[in-house]
């Protein structure tokens, strides 16, 4: 009895998992020659990226000893502000130049119990950057005024919202732990339709060809009519949860499952090819001019031909660190966002945040080549 007691108590005292602090997943984004990463140390860090392979820290937010608690999903880069949904339950709008909240930024608390509730969902900004939407652990989807940080409206789902919402056609789409896919009016938050799946939803939806495509914990990818929520087709070939958001090219949509497979489906849901990445796929993938880039939990980055489903190249130097945070690539049509390309064609670049605190910019052309790596824990280039 004594031995067992001591072992249980010792385990409880020593276990890193008991009541473990939530640190986020190091998501990285970029724009205007600056890369931004929400670190597991609880900072939003801006890195000046001149494209030559050398990066330096521009600023840290918050300064000093204060921390945000990290982020699970990607911040959003606006014209003057960068928006991040933090683990501490707050949505921050930070001035991109100064790295402070300053006169233009703000901070908005979006949970009711900051001790136990967090923001896991990422923020999304509408086209004119007037409204920000983000889901919360307190079961609400919040619409926040982007200029003032004040609540415009909120919608209560049946359970936590970890899914990053998507805006399209004046509607906002998202999923919830209550197994429903929701479609709301963007201006008022009025419920347009909801669709019940067989499992919890954490994936970001994809709006493609008038369809809303979203994966669920019931291991299925659903294609719903974007207007009325009617089920058009369902792909049920995955063997584990679908956590990552789907992405689409011209002809195919790509769904990633935690069974380690990438599934390419046509617009009718027919399987075209299936690529085995070897370990769980959690990070949202990206499409670059050369193909589809996916990152596995095992620490591998794959560049896959989107037509044939064959491997073009693989980058494995990040191992054994896990990759869970969404990947980021600059939009192919970057002129529309007024983004300039600095030091090389950033359209080919993918930004990867790893669980060991390192951030990579990898160029995806004929192969996958590292442009730079930065260790956010040491604040220096990777060794």
């Amino acid at each position, binding site marked *: 009895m*004594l031995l067992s007691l001591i072992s*249980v108590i010792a385990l409880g005292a020593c276990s890193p998992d*008991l*009541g473990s602090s*939530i640190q986020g997943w190091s998501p990285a984004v970029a724009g205007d020659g600056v890369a931004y990463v929400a670190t597991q140390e609880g900072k939003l860090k801006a890195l000046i990226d001149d494209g030559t392979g050398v990066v330096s820290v521009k600023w840290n937010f918050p300064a000093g000893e204060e921390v945000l608690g990290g982020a699970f999903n990607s911040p959003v880069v606006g014209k003057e502000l960068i928006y991040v949904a933090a683990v501490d339950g707050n949505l921050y709008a930070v001035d991109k130049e100064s790295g402070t909240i300053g006169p233009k930024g703000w901070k908005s608390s979006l949970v009711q119990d900051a001790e136990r509730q967090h923001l896991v969902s990422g923020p999304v900004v509408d086209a004119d950057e007037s409204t920000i939407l983000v889901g919360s652990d307190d079961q609400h989807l919040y619409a926040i005024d982007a200029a003032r940080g004040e609540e415009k409206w909120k919608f209560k789902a049946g359970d936590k919202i970890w899914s990053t919402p998507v805006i399209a056609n004046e509607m906002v789409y998202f999923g919830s732990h209550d197994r429903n896919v929701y479609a709301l009016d963007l201006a008022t938050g009025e419920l347009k339709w909801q669709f019940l799946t067989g499992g919890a939803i954490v994936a970001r939806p994809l709006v493609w060809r008038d369809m809303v495509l979203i994966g669920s914990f019931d291991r299925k990818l659903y294609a719903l009519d974007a207007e009325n929520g009617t089920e058009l087709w369902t792909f049920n070939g995955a063997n584990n949860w679908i956590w990552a958001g789907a992405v689409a090219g011209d002809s195919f949509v790509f769904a990633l499952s935690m069974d380690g497979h990438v599934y390419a489906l046509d617009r009718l849901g027919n399987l075209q090819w299936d690529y085995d990445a070897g370990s769980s796929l959690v990070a949202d993938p990206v499409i670059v001019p050369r193909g589809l880039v996916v990152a596995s939990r095992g620490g591998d980055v794959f560049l896959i031909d989107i037509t044939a489903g064959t491997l073009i190249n693989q980058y494995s130097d990040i191992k054994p660190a896990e990759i869970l945070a969404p990947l980021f690539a600059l939009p192919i049509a970057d002129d529309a966002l007024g983004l300039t390309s600095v030091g090389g064609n950033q359209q080919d670049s993918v930004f990867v945040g790893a669980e060991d605190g390192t951030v990579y910019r990898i160029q995806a052309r004929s192969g996958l080549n590292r442009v730079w790596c930065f260790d956010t824990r040491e604040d220096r280039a990777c060794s």
Partner: protein
Amino acid sequence: MEIINTLWTEIIIRPMLNSLVVLYVIFFNNMGIAIIVFTILVRLLTLPLTLKQVRQMRSMNLLQPKMREIQERFKGDRARVSQETMRMYREAGVSPLGCLGPLVVQMPILIGLFRVLIQTLFTNPDDLVGLSEKLYSWLAFLPIYEAAPLNPTFLGMNLGAALPMPGSLILAFFVGGSTWVQQKMTMMPTTDPRQQSSQNMMLWMMPVFLGVFSMGWPSGLPLYWIVSNLIGVSIQYFITGWGPLFPLFPKAAPAPALDQPSQRSQDMTSEEMVEDESSRTNRTNRRRSRRTGAERARHRPQRGRGRNTK
């Protein structure tokens, strides 16, 4: 280290985790019931070991007087003491490590369950990602994937988090109290003042210690501990009856009648002593079971007095 980690995960963690999730799915997505049923199943599986442990501990306690005799008789000759002690154990069919054997098996179960409960009840994204990879794909005919994230609520408690006050205090009371009862039932009365002191210290220290620590645990763990203790009490009752549980708080030292085994031990071998005590206990239990509660109260031996008062 990698191999040990893999073995630990595949042999202990994954079977336990999947069992818990299956029970959750079967019992109406109720984690509290799943934990209770899981605890019962674990105790049933380890019942042979538990019974062996109880019997070994009893035998060891009964041999204490003989042990003291050997130590006094061969004082100064450590080798002879050791030799005679081992002979005594052999004759009685007791292994000094017999008490540890079952514990060594139960410890991985305890530690594993501790970690499994953490993995299944915590719902931050990191824990949830890890959970999916530990589920057995061949169990997919049951809705184990669809069950996640598991609902940690049971009787108003969040089984994945420590209860706020005063809930945690109430739970700690039951944790400590059930531990105390089980310990008291397994204590063998002794007239040795040193042993009494040591026993009393253990009797109170462990329940208090455990109760205090459990206040910081996710409430699913105290639930498991309480249920496990209640099952332990039940097993102990069927083997030895209430034993020394009553009176709950004895005032005086045990009666001289309880010294009789030590007087008789000079004439009996170790094995005979263990068998004799075992059969005496069985006869006592059978007599007790035929009596009503009131009759039992009249016939309960009074501490401080001999059975033959004439």
